[in-house]
């Protein structure tokens, strides 16, 4: 890198010029504490501007920390105003790569900037590799798609509570719905499979055309769950999942409720279990008996005799249809 280390007047650094800005600006206070204690170990990289002054190429947080300490002059490596923008980005990436890994949101902003410069995803990928950041063209494409999504979604990806693939799956949603879903993920922090489950459930419900996803999530039925901060996150997720399931599968939910009610009446529990066929599609039920001795098995036999004569077992096996006339 062709850069001279100089002492630069902080008043001449234009922090509002964000041509090369793509990183998160968190932890400036902590960094300021460290700079105040040991000084600036790694000088930022600045570019001279044609009309005077400097813009930051690498080290926005360091410059901000120094300014917050009221330092009038700081050491910096300065590159010329004529330096190619792509090269400046590569310097910035290399500078960051030496200290920490860029998060998804930062990579997304970086790729968006570079794509404007390079034009193709392959060129972006090739530009990043020598700077120490490997982003295959397919991932570049994903970041470009993400860059067109609402800030709330991008923040979800940066904040690691929304996976990149789930975010991209939200492309087909309206802007308001995408923001609403990102909001739910921010509140509940579900895992990847849980994100997919929620998104699919909401999409299916909205697909019926009765209401939009954002209206649904803003309604009291959902928001009472997602916004109940006195309930822990895991429990809120379970409640949301249950609500979605019941709304998506109203007839199946009723059948399940009836089955478990009757099963309870049969007195099955502990080391005995009765399982229904998947979704009640098949007609074969499974009885599980766990036993440790012949006597134990005999006690099961007695219980089975009682269960076989129970009217609720007959009702279960008759598979009487719950009334669904209100549904269709």
């Amino acid at each position, binding site marked *: 890198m062709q850069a001279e280390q100089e002492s630069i007047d902080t008043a001449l650094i234009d922090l509002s010029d964000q041509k090369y800005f793509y990183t998160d600006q968190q932890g400036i206070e902590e960094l300021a504490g460290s700079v105040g204690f040991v000084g600036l170990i790694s000088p930022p990289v600045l570019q001279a501007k044609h009309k005077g002054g400097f813009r930051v190429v690498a080290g926005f947080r360091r410059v901000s920390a120094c300014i917050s300490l009221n330092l009038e002059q700081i050491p910096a490596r300065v590159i010329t105003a004529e330096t190619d923008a792509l090269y400046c980005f590569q310097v910035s990436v290399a500078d960051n790569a030496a200290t920490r890994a860029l998060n998804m949101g930062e990579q997304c902003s970086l790729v968006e900037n570079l794509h404007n410069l390079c034009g193709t995803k392959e060129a972006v990928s090739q530009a990043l590799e020598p700077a120490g950041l490997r982003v295959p063209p397919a991932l570049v494409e994903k970041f470009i798609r993400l860059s067109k999504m609402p800030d709330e979604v991008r923040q979800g990806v940066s904040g690691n509570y929304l996976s990149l693939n789930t975010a991209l799956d939200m492309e087909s949603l309206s802007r308001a719905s995408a923001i609403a879903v990102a909001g739910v993920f921010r509140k509940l922090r579900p895992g990847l499979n849980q994100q997919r489950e929620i998104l699919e459930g909401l999409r*299916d*419900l909205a*697909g*019926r*055309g009765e209401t939009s996803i954002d209206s649904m999530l803003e309604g009291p039925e959902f928001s009472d769950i997602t916004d109940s901060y006195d309930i822990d996150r895991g429990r809120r997720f379970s409640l949301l999942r249950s609500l979605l399931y019941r709304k*998506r*599968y*109203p*007839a*199946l939910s009723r*059948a399940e409720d009836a089955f478990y009610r009757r099963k309870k009446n049969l007195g099955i529990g502990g080391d005995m279990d009765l399982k229904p066929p*998947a*979704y*009640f*599609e*098949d*007609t074969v039920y499974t009885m599980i008996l766990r036993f440790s001795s012949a006597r134990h098995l005999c006690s099961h036999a007695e219980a089975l005799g009682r269960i076989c004569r129970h009217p609720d077992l007959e009702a279960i096996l008759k*598979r009487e*249809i*719950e009334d*669904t*006339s209100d*549904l*269709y």
Partner: protein
Amino acid sequence: MTEQITARLKVPVQYVKDPAEVYKTVSNTRDPGSAGKSVLLLTRNKGPFIRRCPGTSHYTCCGYRILHIGTYCSMDCAYCILQAYYHPPVLQFFTNHEKMETELKAFFGQKKTGRIGTGEFTDSLIWEAIHPIAGRLVDMFSRQHTAVLELKTKTVLVDNLPRSGHGGKTILAWSLNTERIISNEEHGTASLAVRIAAAEKCQAKGYPLAFHFDPMLLYPGCKQEYGRVADMLFERIDPENIVWISLGSFRFMPELKDVIARRFPDSKIVFSEFIKAMDGKMRYFKPLRIELYRSLIERIREKAPDVLLYFCMEDDEVWEKALGFTPDFFGGLARMLDKSAEKICGLYPER
């Protein structure tokens, strides 16, 4: 035949060495489901013309045979399984009819009742506009007495069918659905009233008839609307002329959901209460299917108590709860359908 068809169509023609070139071109488009309808591939059927219906596991199938004259369809039903069944789906018409006729002659020689149709992998009558084939098939079937041909359609292209001499060995069949579903989901198909009018025309020519309420779709008000379809049907059609009526609810391979959502963004049909059934296909939760069938069966039975009703790909529980019996009671579904065909179409296979 290829020259005749291309001359008739007056569209740009391109000769390809290998059908794979066409498949590749269609596959590489953003929407193969639509692209496959914009190309007509005239080619030889390198496999058998007569095939077993693929059917499905765990559910009762009817032992149907398919006469494989072509694939895909020029109409565009949102629920069409062919969109996901073929990779890619391409409108193709097989031109080596001498091979087809050889296979049919062997089929006629079987000493058992045969039921075969052209309407599984395509619509039976869309091809009449480019190369009338139905008339030739009707004629072939009229000269034997062991098998029936079923021409299943959503069109009304029946004017070219022979007025007489068919011997009752060709069944004209229509897929029926509610006017709402036809209008919203069965794009480019004939309306319900027009389909029934075409069936009435065929009835007047003495053709046996069949009807398929398949796929039935669940939506608020569907039971009343399917009932009205049955009413419309029996206002014009004599149940005595009906060989069979099938009922089947919407079922699909899971991968079809994304295809429908992408190709038909206004369609709501994939968002109902589907469960993954025993054969891996998505089906409505069983009690919902049974309720839907029961209501339509009740309505049909009011007008046509003796007509043969059957389910396409349902299990014994559905049969028992919706129809009151299982096919085993009558010797199995295939036998039930064979007997109806023998009676109404005048088959007398040598056993």
